């Protein structure tokens, strides 16, 4: 197991990248702790898989270094890195039995037969597949196959990190839950560093201690699920995390006030004069419908999503989503919306600005 350090890392698929546009992965500096559960979250094409392949050694970065612990592995081959990877589609050796599948990485490394037998038994117990050890892998279901590839990764005791590349894509929804829970408990039990690539925020937020949100080849925020929810560092994070995402309203910021098309609201902090494109962001969960306080609001429709209702509205001529808890009436008297002042984030050119406490 090892700490993973990415030093000045960047990657371009072009041989001679000239502008920043050419880079699939913009320059980044990160240290990922040993034994952490990380999720790489982002929409398709944002560079998650590129980053994962660099860590696993399938790709060599155009610049920068990758360190496992203190060892520089930038030029080390995949096999030398002692990492395991679970792919989007189950990769198992179809013609082998489950037992042989699990033993395969150990046999290739010339381990002793008695040790292999014992280790395979252990892993089979961990992933709950002792009963099917002697079956051929090809007849198994997709989730069983994913478990095998996970087990094949963990069978080596010296594994540095386990990488997951959208591993639940082909799994049935009800099995997803079970597999994710199992992953989490395996992580707690064995403390491998795990890196989990996904575009599904629920998966990322439930699996990881730390979520790395990527956008356009850049890591825009690395934080706990709570940080991502409360203080998104970039408008993309605000929009991408949460369902629906954060409301972003065009506003002019002046000290501790925001001016939106004539209306003014109080902010929880004081801001130095800002330049560029300024917005305020407020989670739909922190917007409250009132009968007089706050901004006037025009309600377009109300969607009942079960646990709560979602109000699609318009305030200061900009679209706004409001989450209304179950049980609270949405009547004709609800004509205004107020925001919890300390939950409002301020963005200049898409990046969050830290205010000073008022």
């Amino acid at each position, binding site marked *: 197991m090892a700490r993973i350090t990415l030093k000045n890392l960047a990657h371009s698929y072009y041989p001679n990248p000239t502008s920043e546009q050419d880079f699939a992965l913009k320059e980044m500096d990160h240290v990922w702790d040993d034994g952490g559960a990380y999720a790489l979250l982002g929409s398709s094409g944002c560079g998650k898989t590129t980053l994962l392949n660099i860590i696993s050694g399938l790709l060599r970065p155009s610049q920068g270094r990758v360190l496992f612990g203190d060892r520089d592995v930038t030029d080390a081959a995949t096999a030398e890195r002692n990492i395991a990877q679970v*792919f989007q589609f189950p*990769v198992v050796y179809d013609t082998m039995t489950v037992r042989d599948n699990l033993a395969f*990485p150990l046999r*290739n490394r010339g381990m002793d037969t008695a040790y292999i037998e014992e280790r395979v038994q252990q892993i089979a117990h961990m992933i709950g597949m002792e009963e099917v050890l002697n079956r051929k892998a090809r007849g198994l279901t997709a989730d069983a196959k994913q478990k095998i590839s996970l087990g094949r990764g963990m069978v080596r005791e010296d594994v540095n990190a386990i990488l997951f590349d959208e591993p639940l894509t082909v799994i049935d929804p009800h099995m997803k839950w079970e597999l994710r829970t199992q992953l989490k408990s395996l992580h707690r039990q064995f403390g491998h560093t795990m890196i989990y690539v996904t575009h599904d925020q629920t998966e990322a937020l439930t699996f990881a201690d730390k979520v790395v949100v990527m956008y356009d080849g850049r890591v825009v925020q690395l934080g706990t699920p709570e940080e991502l929810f409360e203080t998104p560092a970039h408008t993309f994070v605000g929009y991408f995390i949460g369902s629906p995402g954060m409301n972003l309203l065009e506003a002019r910021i002046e000290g501790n006030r925001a001016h939106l098309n004539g209306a003014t609201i109080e902010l929880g902090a004081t801001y130095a004069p800002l330049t560029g494109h300024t917005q305020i962001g407020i989670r739909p969960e922190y917007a409250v419908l009132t009968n007089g306080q706050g901004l006037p609001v025009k309600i377009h429709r109300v969607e009942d999503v079960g646990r709560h209702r979602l109000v699609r509205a318009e305030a200061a001529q900009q679209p706004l989503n409001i989450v209304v808890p179950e049980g609270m009436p949405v009547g004709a008297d609800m004509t205004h919306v107020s925001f919890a002042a300390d939950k409002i984030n301020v963005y200049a050119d898409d990046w969050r600005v830290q205010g000073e406490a008022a």
Partner: protein
Amino acid sequence: MEKTVNQKAWFLVLPVLVIVAFSAIIPLMTVVNYSVNDTFGNNEFFWAGLEWFEEMVTSSRLHDALGRQILFSGIILAIEVPLGIFIALNMPKSGFWASACLVAMALPLLIPFNVVGTIWQIFGRVDIGLLGHALAALGIDYNYTNDSLDAWITVVVMDVWHWTSLVALLAYAGLQSIPQAYYQAAKIDQASRWAVFRFIELPKMKGVLLIAILLRFMDSFMIYTEPFVVTGGGPGNSTTFLSIDLVKMAVGQFDLGPAAAFSIMYFLVILLVSWVFYTVMTNLDREEQK
């Protein structure tokens, strides 16, 4: 909803029925007719029963031809299948050279059989052929017209040249369908090159390889044109395969009865072997699923 009954729809099937009748059923029945009758011309037929079949089954001439045929099919399968796989494994996976290789590989398949025969017939001639003359110049005693072994080598090499591409192209298609993730997983598992072949590539190619083997078996078992053009079945009878023998019997000696019995048995043998092959393979597949 009520379905309208319209018997006129049968007329739509009629053209196919007529074509099949004229192209397959009627000729086949003619052969069946010859096989159970004896004739001396004038369209007069004398009932012979299974006499021709009995004669053919016990004929040592047929046994020898069958032996040669089995040997030939065995040899070319043993060469073409591994060689085709080997070529497919070493072909570039993408880019300009992938297309260039594909076209080059497909070329022999596009050449008509008798042209292939003629090419090799000339190529191997000691007096003017490039191969024959070059070998003679090197002091190697090679002459496919009077040495059985040389004739066999020529015919086998010709078939390998003509048909290995088919196996290679099918195997290549099988290889191309393997997702990259398998190779990446194998790298992570530190699998050797042999293990990658044995556990990833071979299982994924299995389906197309079965088709390749079946096609090559049937085709080589019925081979006629190429060896006929090159060696004419000689020297002696050393390259007289089943179909060459059949033609000799039917249009050379004009023994229509025995030839008809022969061709029916020939047809049944190919059908039987292909069926057995197919059944065994699909059963193996099903067993593995369990």
